[in-house]
Each structure stands twice: as structure tokens, then as C-alpha cells.
């Protein structure tokens, strides 16, 4: 029997600036089918979802609903067409109760609320999902799993035909995942088409009827689950083209600068152990939600660790705030330049000297502005910051140049350990190459570097060793030779044996 697809995406392309997020992707969603979508960070999954739900418009391509071309101009239109999405962190109105949250999107039911009817209908929908939940309870205090159930009920109340689930299990316990999957199977039996996105391969292979892999904005493979193996899926996700492998110099020295043992923070990560030597670049790889940034924040004292030890140059230290971290020679360049890193209305010079102002005091306790400007000028030359002068506001610079100001600011603290969190996210190719060159130079000067990056080819190209994390746990550390895209990705997706395989391969070789 030939079933017609509910939703068909035909040859969809979308570009953001210089990034081709989607390139000619075609996808069909059938009623009563769970369609899993796999792909590394930045493979184009999110862009596709946003196009399906009307957040973005495709540059080219067609969207067909029941075989008829449609235009999805807004989330409201997507809702009206029966397309809904639930996310890892559901969007609730915490002060409204469960029933109100379910029916919040319903317009045109008259100006008055028929409370009795609303509660009855809400209960009916939850019963249909076989879920016990008090519809009069406020959403505040519901577990993430319960909130997702409310979101699903909301979608059902709107006669959903296509349900997109974006990493719905990331914040759930094993038991809750089981309950969610029971609901998913019930929806499937009712003929809903489900697009399921997850980084947990075992779940994907448990629930999906069809598995599609994206990479670099393209569809690489799409096949019924029975025809796909885990290894094959990982290989399809990995094979990212590496245009140019950065020729790192070998600069690792013998001196172990930082040693971390069994580091952990309640609710974020645990059991993280590694060491970094002077002149070494230790990459941190992992997928979204791997909690790599939390390890960086713990080392820098923003969200201090509550477990484990940190030893710097042979001395065990306690780091509970950024000042202490800076005193121990740690610098952290955050991924969020605008939010956490720079003061946009202030000048380049003022931003660079901010953490080290005391160094610029004259005997009277006043700032020596000429010296500040000289420092800034030096960094402007060294890092090739493109700005007419160092007194220009940072807010006026391009992303790449802002990134360089950030780096200058922290290099000026003369760190021994430099933590770089996504240093090249959102900057153009040229600036990216410059940042890579800088990382190599800094390592050559003997600085120990922790490089957190979601760009897998970048981590592999820049790191002497790669630490892989997954959901707050350390999955293994690979040397530069062991670290292939397949192995790192397999570890990041929880295939522990991949780590063993790598070890084995090396001891054999």
C-alpha cells in the first residue's frame, strides 16, 4: 500500500551570511512514522525545524502539505497547518495551570472562558495519552517530562499532524524517557508523523522507523532503520570535509601545568580528570549538552566545582571566584562575546585593560591612560585588530575583531592556562584562520590551552589531545593520532567501545 506523505520538504536551501545552512535538502514525513534526524552540531537540523515551523523562510525549494504547496510564514501558520514542535526545554507559562497551558493557543472561542469545559477537554486529551496529571495544577514546579507532556497535549488539542521533537530526551531520566516513548508510540498509532531529533543513538535506533543523516547542510543518507547500522550512521555524520588541516607545530613541554582529578559539580558534570602541559592544546569535544563549558566555568571559578581537586604547577588550589582563578594564571575567553565578554559602549583600550587595571596605576593611584593606550596599541598590531584607533567603541567592530579584543583582554592577564570557549563561532573564515594561527603561537610560547569547540574538524586540527565529553561525563581522551572524526563522534554519542577500539588500535599499531 502506498501512503502519501503528510509533509514534504523539496530541495530546500537556506543561507545565513556566508554559511550555507541547508543545501538542497529533501525530506518526506509519512503519517504514523517516526522519522529520526541525525547530525553533528551545525549540520542543519535546527534550520530545517525552523523552516518547518515558520521561524525562517527557505531561500529556495518547496514545502508541500498533503501534496499541495504551502507557505509557512509564521509559527501561527505552522500551528494552523498542524505542525508543532516540542523542545528540550518546554516553553511554559509557569503561573497558568496545566489546562490553561494546553489551550493557550486557542483563539476565537469567544471572549469568555468556559472553565468546566476546558478542564474536561484537557483531561480527555491527557487520558488519550494515558497520562495522569492534575489539570488544575500550575505549570510551575512540573518536571521537564511533565512539561513536555503538556506541550504534546497542547499540540494534540490543535489537531497536530506533524510533531517535531527536538532533543526531547536530553533532560529526562531513563524512566521518563520510557514514558515519553510510550506516548510517541501512541501518537504514531494515531497516524501522527513524528520528526525525532536526538544525540542518543540507542534511543534513535529504539524508536525510529526511518533514519536520516545530515552533514554540512546536506542530506547524506536516509533509510529504514532495519537497513542502517550504528557504525554506518556515525560514519555518515562524521566524514566532514576538512578543507585544510592546520599544520600545528609540536610545542608540548614536559612540565605538567594543570592537573585535574575527578572534578565535578552537582547537576552539571562529574568524574572529569585530565592534565595539560605547558605548550599543549587540549581539545574538548562533545555534542550540545555535553557540559564542556561547565568544566571551563568551574576552572575559572564562575560556577565552582564542588568535587575533585585542581593542581596548578604542583600546588593544589581552590578556585571559587574569577579573581582567584586569575591569580593562579587562568584566563577564560567566553563564547558569548556580547553577553559575557565585552562592554560594547567602552573603547577597545578600556576593554583590554579591564581585568588588569591595577597594573596601570601611577604612584598617585591614578590610571595612566597613555600606558593603557600603548598596551592596546600593541595588541592591535600583534593580533591585527582592524579598527581606526584603540579608542573606538568595541560595539562598532565586526565579530572577528571583537573576538580579537576578547583574546587581547585575557592575554593581557598573562595567563599560564588559557581556556578558549568556542573561539571561532560566528566569525568569518579569514578571522578564523588568524585565531588558529594565534592558538599555535600561544602554545609555542608555552601557554597551556584548553580549546572547547563544537567544530569537530577544528578541535581535531588544533589539539594535541582531545577530551570527549557526553552529558556531563568524560568519555575518554584521544591523542592527536587516535582522534579521528569517527572515533571522537562515536565517543560523543555514547558508544563507549569506540574509546576501547581506539586504545586497542594504538597498542596494536
Amino acid at each position, binding site marked *: 500500500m502506498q501512503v502519501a506523505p503528510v509533509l514534504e520538504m523539496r530541495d530546500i536551501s537556506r543561507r545565513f551570511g556566508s554559511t550555507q545552512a541547508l543545501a538542497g535538502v529533501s525530506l518526506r514525513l509519512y503519517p504514523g512514522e517516526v522519522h529520526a534526524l541525525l547530525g553533528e552540531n551545525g549540520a542543519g537540523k535546527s534550520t530545517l525545524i525552523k523552516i518547518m515551523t515558520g521561524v525562517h523562510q527557505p531561500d529556495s525549494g518547496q514545502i508541500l502539505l498533503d501534496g499541495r504547496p504551502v507557505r509557512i510564514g509564521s509559527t501561527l501558520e505552522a500551528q494552523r497547518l498542524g505542525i508543532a514542535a516540542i523542545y528540550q526545554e518546554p516553553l511554559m507559562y509557569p503561573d497558568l495551570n496545566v489546562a490553561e497551558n494546553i489551550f493557550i493557543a486557542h483563539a476565537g472561542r469567544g471572549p469568555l472562558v468556559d472553565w468546566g469545559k476546558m478542564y474536561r477537554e484537557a483531561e480527555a486529551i491527557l487520558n488519550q495519552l494515558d497520562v495522569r496529571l492534575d489539570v488544575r495544577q500550575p505549570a510551575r514546579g512540573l518536571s521537564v517530562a511533565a512539561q513536555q507532556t503538556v506541550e504534546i497535549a497542547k499540540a494534540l488539542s490543535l489537531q497536530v499532524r506533524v510533531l517535531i521533537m527536538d532533543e526531547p530526551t536530553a533532560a529526562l531520566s531513563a524512566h521518563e524517557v520510557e514514558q515519553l516513548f510510550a506516548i510517541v508510540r501512541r501518537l504514531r498509532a494515531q497516524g501522527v508523523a513524528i520528526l525525532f531529533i536526538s544525540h542518543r543513538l540507542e534511543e534513535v535506533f529504539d524508536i525510529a522507523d526511518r533514519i536520516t543523516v545530515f552533514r554540512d547542510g546536506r542530506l547524506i543518507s536516509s533509510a529504514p532503520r532495519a537497513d542502517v547500522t550504528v557504525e554506518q550512521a556515525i560514519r555518515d555524520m562524521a566524514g566532514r570535509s576538512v578543507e585544510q588541516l592546520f599544520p600545528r607545530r609540536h610545542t608540548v613541554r614536559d612540565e605538567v601545568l594543570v592537573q585535574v582529578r575527578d572534578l565535578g559539580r552537582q547537576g552539571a558534570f562529574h568524574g572529569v580528570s585530565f592534565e595539560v602541559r605547558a605548550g599543549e592544546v587540549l581539545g574538548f569535544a562533545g555534542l550540545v549538552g555535553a557540559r564542556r563549558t561547565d568544566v571551563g566555568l568551574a576552572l575559572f571559578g564562575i560556577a565552582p566545582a564542588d568535587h575533585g581537586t585542581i593542581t596548578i604547577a604542583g600546588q593544589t588550589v581552590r578556585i571559587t571566584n574569577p579573581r582567584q582563578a586569575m591569580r593562579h594564571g587562568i584566563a577564560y575567553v567566553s563564547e558569548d562575546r556580547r553577553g559575557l565578554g565585552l562592554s560594547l559602549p567602552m573603547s577597545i583600550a578600556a576593554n583590554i585593560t579591564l581585568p588588569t587595571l591595577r597594573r596601570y596605576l601611577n604612584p598617585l593611584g591614578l*590610571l595612566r591612560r597613555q600606558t593603557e593606550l600603548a598596551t592596546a596599541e600593541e595588541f592591535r598590531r600583534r593580533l591585527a585588530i582592524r*579598527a581606526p584607533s584603540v579608542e573606538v567603541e568595541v560595539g562598532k567592530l565586526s565579530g572577528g575583531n571583537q573576538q580579537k579584543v576578547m583574546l587581547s583582554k585575557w592575554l593581557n592577564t598573562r595567563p599560564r592556562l588559557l581556556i578558549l570557549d568556542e573561539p571561532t563561532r560566528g566569525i568569518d573564515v579569514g578571522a578564523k584562520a588568524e585565531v588558529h594561527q594565534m592558538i599555535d603561537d600561544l602554545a609555542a610560547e608555552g601557554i597551556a590551552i584548553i580549546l572547547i569547540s563544537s567544530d569537530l574538524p577544528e578541535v581535531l586540527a588544533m589539539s594535541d589531545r582531545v577530551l570527549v565529553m557526553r552529558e556531563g561525563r568524560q568519555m575518554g581522551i584521544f591523542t592527536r593520532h587516535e582522534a579521528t572524526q569517527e572515533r571522537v563522534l562515536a565517543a560523543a554519542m555514547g558508544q563507549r567501545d569506540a574509546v576501547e577500539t581506539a586504545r586497542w588500535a594504538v597498542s596494536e599499531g
Partner: protein
Amino acid sequence: MHTWRQRIRPEQIRELSLIGLIVIALLIFGWQIENFLSARTFNRITSSVAIVGMVAIGQTLVVLTRNIDLSVGSIVGFTAYFVGSQLAANPGLPPVAAIVLAVLTGGALGLVNGLIVAYGRVPAIITTLGTLAIYRMLLINYANARTITVDSLPSWVVELSRQTLFAIGDFAVRPLFAITIAAMVVFQFVLAYTVFGRRLYAIGSNPEAARFAGLPAQRTVLAAFVLCGMLAGMAGFLFLARFGNITAVAGQGIELESVAAVVVGGVNTFGGSGTVLGALLGAFLIDLLGQGLLRWLGISEFWRDALLGLLILLAVASDSVILGWLRRVWAAPALRAEVSNER
């Protein structure tokens, strides 16, 4: 090559344009109103700006950190009355002691604000709205419906508002105004050349980045409120010296005038940019417009408040529009320079 565009930053343009507006207003009023450009007008405006300007300097420090202090009017009133009554009771109190007493009293009230905002994490607008009422209540209780009169004060206090420190032609500069100008110079310097000043800007423009840079945000915000209280206390002393007769409603409305001066003076209400010089020029412009329109159009005193409100709205609206436009004009050659650098 240094062009004038590179030498002058948009923020300085704001101050220059305020001076320009003041000059234009002076010319128009001087042309339209008989005897407007007189020593009397100058004296009236400078005496008033001395008080509001002093408060506006403190308000600037607080607004730079993305906070606001609405209790300054009550602090001015409380200090004026408190110091006045002490002077009436002990006429032998030396001038320096009286001033120190005023500054400390204001500082203590500011400390309460600062502790609640910085460590209690209560939004500044709520905190100081509360203390606005509480400090006023303290004053009403303390005053108990009595009034401090000029006659009860030592003569040196009252003389402060009448003496001439020095004169330029007919225009006499009174000690009160000179004190405020001196405070402005000091704090302009503090903002530009001290670690504390730089931290105020940093914390206001991006609190999170300040935290990442290891700046002591809570202590700095506390210090801003304490200084604001001390300056308001000083303003309370100036208020006492200027008016001599002090009742329980003294200083009411100064919070609005100081916020207006700060905003018109170009201090960003989202923190991070602005100067005390700008705030003082803002206070000057507002008072000039008030005096001028009062006499030119014969508007009533009540219009003054409406005028303040209008100026605040105009300043904030023009801030985003005009400053945005100025920045684009400035950025254009800068960008061209950037492009040519890259070649």
C-alpha cells in the same frame, strides 16, 4: 592622519551640543526678554544649579551602574533640616564640622540604599522609592511641624549664598556654585582616571562581563550609592545655606530634577556611558529653559514640572535617535578606514 572626527567622540558631541543649545537659548531669551542677560538671572540660575547639579553628580554615578536613586530629594531635605537644627542648637559649630556632618548624614542614608540594592538584590527603583518615603517620614517626625528659620542660623551659613567669591564683569560667582563646580571637576577626574570610575562604566554597560573580569560588582554599586548619598548630603547643606528657612517638605522633587539633568546630560539610563560634566550642563539647560519660559511666556510654576517631564522624554528619545545617527555618521569614515587598512 588625525581628523577632527577621530579626535572627538560621539559622547563629547553630546556635551558640545548641550553647550550649543544653552547658547541658543541664551540668545533667544536675551533677544526676547528685557533684561534677561543680567547678573540677577545668572545668580538665580547658578544658585539653583548649585543644588540640583550637586545631586546630579551623585545621580550620574548611580545611573552609570544601571541603577537609579529616587531618594535623593528626601536625603537633601533630611540633611538640610538635620544640619540646620544642629547649627541652631550649637551656633559655635565650625563650618567644616557642619559640612562633614551633612556629608556623613547623607552617606549613611545612601549606605542603606546601597546595601539593600547591592546585597539584598532589590531593584534600585523599588528600594529608593521605598526610602524616598521613609526618609521623608523620618524628617517629618524629627521636624515635628517646626521650621528652621534664617534667624536661628549662624550668619556665616546665610552669607554663603550672598558672598561673591569672584566676579566676571557683573556676573558674580557665589561660593555655593563654586563648591558644585569643584565637585564636578573632582568627579569628572574620578570617572576618567581611577579604577573605581572605570569599574562604574564596566559594571553598568555589561554586568556579566564585569563578573567574568573579576570586578567586585557589589562593592562598587554600594560605593556608588554611598557617594550619591554623600553628594546629596552636601547638596542638603547648600540647600540650607541658600534658603535658610527649612520645613519638612524641603528638597521635594529634586529626585525628578536630578534624573532629568542626568538624562538630558546624556548619561545612558542603561548604564555605561555619560559624564558628570554632561549632567551639570543638563541641569543648567533645564534651569535656563525653566527661568526663560517662565518670564517669556509667563507660564506658571506648575508648568515647570511638565517641562521637566517633556525634556526627559525628549532627551531619551533623541538619545536613541540622534546618537544612533551620529554614530553612523562617525562610523562611516571609520569603516572606510578599516577597509583601506585591510588592503
